[in-house]
């Protein structure tokens, strides 16, 4: 792919990824090498399909843990100022154009309170 992929996260040169962190053996005292990981980039059609989503929040279920806000890789969500019935600040979408449809918010939510639907299904 030659097009500039501006939406991919910046990887800082030199910083160890999770796989490369050092681990010393408990029994031999030698270093246990990091695994070789392979990832393939998404194709353009795949990316467009993933982006064709809306975020739905079931406000009454939200307990305000903010995992979705914190772990969204595109910083799409923020805390709403108002409170729900539980006294929690629910998430709201800051800018839906940023969302790439990765689904982390849906998976990391422990309370089944946020999920993605195909654009157009909402309302």
């Amino acid at each position, binding site marked *: 792919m030659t097009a500039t992929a501006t939406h991919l996260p910046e990887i800082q040169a030199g910083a160890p990824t999770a796989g490369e962190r050092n681990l010393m053996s*408990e029994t031999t005292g030698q270093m246990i090498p990091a695994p070789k990981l392979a990832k393939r980039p998404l194709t353009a059609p795949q990316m467009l399909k993933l982006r064709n989503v809306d975020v739905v929040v079931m406000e009454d279920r939200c307990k305000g843990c903010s995992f979705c806000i914190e772990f969204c890789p595109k910083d799409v969500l923020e805390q709403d100022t108002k409170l729900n019935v539980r006294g929690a600040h629910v998430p709201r979408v800051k800018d839906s154009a940023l969302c790439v449809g990765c689904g982390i918010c849906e998976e990391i939510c422990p309370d089944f309170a946020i999920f993605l639907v195909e654009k157009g299904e909402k309302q």
Partner: protein
Amino acid sequence: MSELQHPLEDYTRRGMIPHIWCNGCGDGIILGEFLRALDEVKYDINKVVVVSGIGCIGRISGYTGTDSFHTTHGRALAFAVGVKAVRPDLKPVVISGDGDLFAIGGNHFIHAARRNIDVMVICSNNFNYGMTGGQSGPTTPIDAYTTTTRYGNIEHPFNLAHLAAASGAIYVARWTAIHVKRIRESIKKAINKKGFSFIEVITPCPEEYGRRNKIPDPIQGMKWLREVSVVRSFIDPIEAVVQPDKIVVGEFVNKEKTEFSELLSASTQAVQSKLEKEGKLTNVAI
């Protein structure tokens, strides 16, 4: 805000969500990933029997839309062994906590693993006994603070992956609550394996363990897990340590071994064939 249904709604028990777990508890993540895994492999949901013990995670059997049983403390595996022995067509899934499975239930765990009975076990390890207010348990790290170790824990904890592998499990993996996709992939693999599988999920417990050990905020708990996790699959489980500054995660064991129901079935067949051949009703004297 909307009348749209959560994608996993049909897999949950009607009317039971929202669940009782605390804000930031990893148990909700385990529930979500378990149901997602069943959906993705299109597992026959009528064949799954979710068995849980006592504890916060023990409530999970009430939230899954499957045949479920909530047993007495520590006995979930013994119950599951009974189910599988008479109904090899069913798949019991035991989802329970570190204390339920390894303190009071320790004996049942090692024997179920030894037998290599076709049961998948998911352990929510939050380093303490959350439901009763945060007492220490067999996985509490040394020096940690709990309500019963106010001066710091003086006991060495278990390495659960090592224990499971040593007892005979054919699939052993450890992830943390932050490794959502990995948990799901492990469940997908384990549920289709014939034999004893063990998946440990290290979860934050902000209200009890977290509060007493400098990670009281849900976000802090998750960030801590991300920071201290090191992925090393297929190393010797004895190397896969769990310490406050280093949690080794990965898939450690994935092998095959004759499963209990197969052995039982073969043995029963042999006995009955012998009787048929000899034309007898029984070979046992009364």
